[in-house]
């Protein structure tokens, strides 16, 4: 059994500081790694090599880029609202770091060379997952304010798009999380991981998992949902006018947010730090000590690979289709599924012991997944009405046109046969 809520709030101050610093360092290093990894993977998908010069396998490329970025000239446009312009990147980046404080990296461990036993998690609270949602919604402010304060049309449009997108997809995301709360009976991340000791939640809550994965891509503005920074339309979107360190902060926040949503998905649906199925059965120590950190980062990086894969393979959505998808597909399905899960929860509470509810959940999950897939399938097009076989008019509407399908060009008549009056051809 892993740590519970009572395990938190008893660390000495130096342990708390150590954990906070570790979370910070891990996130910064992870960002550097993810940038390199994304460039390498996308390069491989496009038959290129990617950065391979600086350091082993090019691993130090992002570090070099980061230094270069920080040393660039920092420009504040004349039309910018200076205070808000400087504040915006900070507002984006701070929540990105804060959300990671409630992510469980592992069970309780003993810190080497001391007798202190502590959970591998900075803190936990009864509302940890809602806390993440709340802090993430503060991060949206940074993007909107950055877009507004730049004094540029591209930035403003990017900021507005991004706020609309993130608010819309946050709804679907929150609804997907509710079923996890119902299933686990708690909103604390460490206890949700405990509740998945038997069965990881992506099996019984498959529709929620799918909806969460889709909406998390929308929530962090990544391809194919990267409309706020659509290069072809908005140059760089909300960060068009940003340069140097301020731009670096936006960049950092984007990658940390990607890691955050992946970590949340891992914690809520893939058993958090628990060893993948099969390992814990043959090896008792798989879920103890520092090993769970490995499983956790493995799952999280798998999600990040998924992000990169999406970026490498899918084109960007059109904005109205994207919003339609969020509001008219994801949210209604989530609502229906929540009612279903709540109903099953009642069945389980009222008829405890009389039904094997695991199979009930699996059956319902499969049913709902089929429903989701059916909804995602494109509608069968009505067969086009047969074009009326009208006589071919070479000057329909007053300008020369080719024949429509089913029409035929009039038989070509040799010029010499018809005109004897010497037309110039």
């Amino acid at each position, binding site marked *: 059994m892993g740590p519970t809520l009572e395990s938190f709030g008893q660390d000495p101050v130096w342990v708390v500081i150590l954990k906070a610093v570790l979370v910070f360092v891990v996130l910064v290093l992870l960002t550097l790694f993810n940038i390199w990894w994304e460039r390498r993977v996308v390069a491989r998908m496009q038959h290129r090599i990617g950065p391979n010069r600086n350091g082993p396998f090019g691993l130090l490329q992002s570090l070099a880029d980061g230094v270069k970025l920080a040393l660039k000239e920092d420009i504040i446009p004349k039309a910018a609202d200076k205070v808000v312009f400087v504040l915006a990147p900070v507002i984006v980046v701070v929540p990105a770091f804060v959300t990671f404080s409630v992510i469980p990296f592992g069970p309780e461990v003993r810190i080497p060379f001391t007798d202190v036993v502590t959970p591998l998690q900075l803190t936990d609270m009864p*509302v940890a997952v809602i806390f993440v949602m709340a802090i993430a919604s503060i991060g949206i*402010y940074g993007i909107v304010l950055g877009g*507004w304060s730049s004094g540029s049309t591209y930035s403003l449009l990017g900021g507005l798009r991004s706020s609309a997108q993130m608010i819309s997809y946050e709804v679907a995301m929150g609804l997907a999380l509710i079923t996890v709360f119902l299933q686990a009976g708690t909103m604390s991340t460490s206890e949700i991981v405990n509740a998945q000791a038997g069965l990881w939640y992506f099996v019984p809550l498959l529709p929620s998992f799918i909806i969460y994965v889709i909406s998390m891509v929308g929530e962090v503005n990544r391809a194919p949902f990267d409309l706020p920074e659509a290069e072809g339309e908005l140059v760089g979107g909300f960060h068009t006018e940003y340069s140097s360190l301020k731009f670096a902060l936006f960049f950092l926040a984007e990658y940390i947010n990607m890691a955050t949503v992946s970590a949340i998905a891992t914690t809520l649906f893939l058993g958090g730090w628990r060893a993948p199925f099969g390992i814990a059965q043959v090896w008792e120590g798989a879920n103890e000590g520092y090993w769970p950190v490995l499983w956790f980062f493995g799952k999280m990086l798998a999600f990040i690979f998924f992000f990169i894969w999406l970026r490498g393979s899918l084109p960007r959505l059109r904005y109205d289709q994207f919003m339609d998808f969020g509001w008219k597909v994801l949210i209604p399905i989530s609502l229906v599924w929540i009612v279903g899960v709540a109903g099953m929860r009642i069945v389980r509470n009222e008829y405890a012991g009389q039904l094997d509810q695991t199979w009930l959940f699996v059956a319902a999950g499969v049913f709902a997944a089929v429903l989701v897939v059916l909804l995602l399938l494109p509608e069968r097009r009505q067969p086009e009405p047969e074009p009326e076989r009208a006589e071919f008019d070479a000057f329909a*509407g007053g300008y020369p046109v080719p024949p429509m399908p089913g029409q035929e060009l009039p038989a070509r008549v040799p010029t010499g046969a018809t005109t004897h009056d010497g037309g110039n051809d």
Partner: protein
Amino acid sequence: MIAFWILAPVMVVAALGMVLARKAVHCALLLAVVMISLAVLYAVQDAPFLFAVQIIVYTGAILMLFLFVLMLVGVDASDSVVETIRGQRLASVLLGLGFGVLLVLGVAQVSVGTVVGLSEANAGGNIEGIAAVLFSTYFLAFEVTAALLITAALGAMVLAHRERLTPKATQADLAAQRMRDYAEHGKHLGPLPPPGVYARHNAVDTPALLPDGSPAPTSLSRVLTARGSTLSPPGSATQVERIGGSDEDVAPRDDAPEGGAGR
């Protein structure tokens, strides 16, 4: 208590700033500061659920406010200081002061003892405690509020809804319409000409040139033309010359305001 003494001045300053700030967007931002500080105070007082919900609900609401400011008032909206009603400012200051005095007097009359019962209320867990109260004692109020919110949402939808009278024009319809326009009025079929490209500029405020050397009006955004912030061909030609070396008599931009806020 430490949190209170740190946050209280922040909140008071932010609240005052919200009232006094000229730009509507700054007001919205300061309102967010007040709300988030309030949320932190909830967290300090052992109400984690209220903390999270306060942030989610109010940041969402303020973001909406922010968007409405941008949509309805405009990007650079700032308050007009012209009094529309004579004596309004004086009256509002007096009324505000009076209300403040009333509030201070009223609150000062109340003597607050040590708060008790927090641990009892949180005994079964904070969220469970709130749920128990919300779905038993205040169930009716909760449901009525829900009904009110649903009515409001439906009302907004009804007000914003527009019945479509004609079928939506598809891409094919639009293409046919363009062709008809061309056939009947000779309106140009293709896309508008792009802005001009010179040695120095390919910016949107540089017009394309017609064969006779005059600027093509359709190559510029109407908004830019109306504002007068476009670059005329002679102007840009002199700028190109300046780059080439002859930096004498450089013609200013058409629209160069006094003080030169040019590019």
